[in-house]
């Protein structure tokens, strides 16, 4: 789950970190009122994606009137596919230096990784490529944690002057928030040293592990809603992994690997898949709901049902599909390929109850479906 800047900063503030004063605003009028209370401000688009500055989504405003005009310009923009519905109106900071700090899950070391650079404000990939000497990284033993001594060791030799102490304290705080909230990523770019010597997060990017939301109930409500289509919302409500695509061949398969492969073969055969939907794992009993969902996409001209059951029993999945088929009575042609656990029973059911002969090779079933969709 991604958190917009304002939500990420709320999480930091709740954890006791000091963040700039700001207000979330949904209109130019609100922005003007906020700026009147705060003083000179920055008006920032709130979308769960990067590159806001480059897209014109961040503007300085010296007066309430300027704040209103900036908010007017930014609200309604689309950045990275997200429409901007709200802006954060935040006090302008007297910035002396800008740094970069992050804590993230690192697949290479299978551990948390703390990153810090004296070069803030630009993409970390760019920093790593152009100023590698400014970038420090430390893999953390998650059972021991990351304390002040670790932070000092990480920063050793960097030209930080007086800022070394508050920066070290900030890194320890960021690690604590990352751990406390099951973050995949907590990135502060820039982390600013202010003229008065304080170190504060000017931006905040927070991603929390979806698998841990059950134990992050106190902050889950602050997370950004994913931009889902109506069908994707329906899939979500059914606990099915459904992604709507623009093609015309509906795909129903079990397991993420097989479903991706089915889409690949549709594409290889010259067709375009109209969805990703897998009913593997515990979802294998949801064949009825799944088929209904796939067929609800108006673009679907033909359908591939491709099962390769390991844990998921193909007879159970096929039973669900057959039941839905009889209820919905769709007009699009369907092409089956069924193998693995329960295949004899599944093939017999499809043959007897739908009068359809499953293909032995999935490539053949898919080619036929692509042909039928033309």
């Amino acid at each position, binding site marked *: 789950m991604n958190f917009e800047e304002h939500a990420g900063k709320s999480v930091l503030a709740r954890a006791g970190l000091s963040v700039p004063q700001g207000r979330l605003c949904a209109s130019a009028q609100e922005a003007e009122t906020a700026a009147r209370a705060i003083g000179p401000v920055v008006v920032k688009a709130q979308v769960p994606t990067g590159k806001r500055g480059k897209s014109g989504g961040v503007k300085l405003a010296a007066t309430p009137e300027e704040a209103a005009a900036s908010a007017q310009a930014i609200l309604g923009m689309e950045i990275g596919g997200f429409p901007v519905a709200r802006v954060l109106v935040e006090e302008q900071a007297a910035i002396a230096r800008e740094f970069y700090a992050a804590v993230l*899950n690192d697949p290479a070391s299978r551990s948390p990784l703390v990153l810090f650079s004296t070069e803030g404000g630009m993409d970390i990939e760019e920093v790593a490529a152009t100023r590698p000497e400014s970038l420090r990284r430390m893999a953390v033993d998650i059972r021991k944690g990351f304390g002040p001594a670790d932070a000092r060791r990480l920063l050793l030799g960097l030209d930080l002057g007086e800022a070394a102490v508050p920066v070290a304290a900030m890194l320890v705080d960021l690690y604590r928030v990352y751990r406390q909230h099951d973050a995949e990523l907590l990135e502060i770019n820039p982390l600013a040293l202010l003229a008065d010597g304080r170190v504060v997060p000017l931006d905040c990017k927070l991603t929390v*592990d979806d698998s*841990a939301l059950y134990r992050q109930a106190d902050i889950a409500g602050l997370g950004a809603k994913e931009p889902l289509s109506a069908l994707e919302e329906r899939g979500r409500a059914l606990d099915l992994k459904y992604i709507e695509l623009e093609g015309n061949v509906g795909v129903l398969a079990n397991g993420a*690997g097989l479903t991706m492969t089915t889409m690949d073969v549709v594409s290889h055969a010259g067709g375009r898949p109209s969805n990703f939907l897998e009913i593997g794992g515990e979802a294998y009993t949801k064949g009825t709901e799944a088929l209904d969902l796939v067929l609800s996409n108006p673009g679907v001209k033909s359908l591939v049902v491709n099962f390769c059951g390991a844990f998921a029993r193909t007879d159970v999945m096929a039973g669900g599909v057959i039941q839905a088929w009889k209820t919905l009575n769709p007009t699009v042609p369907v092409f089956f390929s069924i*193998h693995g656990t329960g295949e004899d029973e599944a093939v017999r059911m499809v043959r007897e109850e739908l009068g359809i002969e499953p293909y032995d090779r999935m490539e053949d079933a898919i080619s036929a479906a692509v042909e039928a969709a033309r």
Partner: protein
Amino acid sequence: MIVRKSDRVLVQGITGKQGTFWTEQMQAYGTTVVGGVNPKKAGQSHCGVPIFATAKEAMANGGFNVSVMFIPPAAAKAAAIDAIEAGAKTVVCLTEHIPAHDVMEMHAAAAEHGTRIIGPNTAGIVTPGECFVGIMPAFNPRVFQPGRVGVISRSGSLGTLVCLNLVRGGHGQSAFLGIGGDPMIGTTTKDALAALIDDPGTDAIALVGEIGGSMEEEAAELVAKTDKPVVSFIAGRASPPGKKMGHAGAIVTGDRGSYASKRGALERAGAVVVDVPGDLPAALDALMAEAAKRSGAQRLAD
């Protein structure tokens, strides 16, 4: 990491519906299951084997070297660490959706105790004709036959499809190594490839990859060094970037983890990468014939 009949397998969560079903399947196929774990039913027996309160208790009473976990996500960390601290050589973690911070704690404990974790989110490992651990249809003769091709797959469903295609093309398997669909797994594609390269029962390797991460690129380093033929299929070519395709690990962000990067790395290392899984057996036949010719020429030269 290739499972043998001589391995002594402990089933954590043996009394649940899936634990029971798959324990029976494993036993029927030849796996040596020595016990199960369920603290509430310790002292009883299930599927003909004793139930212990913990993995440590199982280790003290007869012992085991491989554990397999039928454990829900919220309890997975404690179960894995119990098995690791008990001294398990290998922990096969089937559980999907374990919080990533818990997974990192599991890996840290495993590194300290010298335990190999397979998974999380794996469908398990199969040694056809001998035994299996996990939730693969080892018992389906159209999918698994004893043979000499080693198979590596993150995904159970796609692994099943690939094994089906191999058997259809006349190739049985020396081992199926399911490594799991999570972003932080204990046994990587490269680790599994190293095991198959070292295995005298394996003549050729089918490497099944997926978009996301960099495991295929890292494995390519070993592909370049081995004489064993390697064929590969990479899933996710048609998947849109920025979307998680079911497996948490299968996501492309920027250039990282892209299909082109993986295919390029494997091809440069000498693997044959096919467009569709159905082409794997023919690619394998061609490479194996070439390898046989090379070793024949080598013998003549000697």
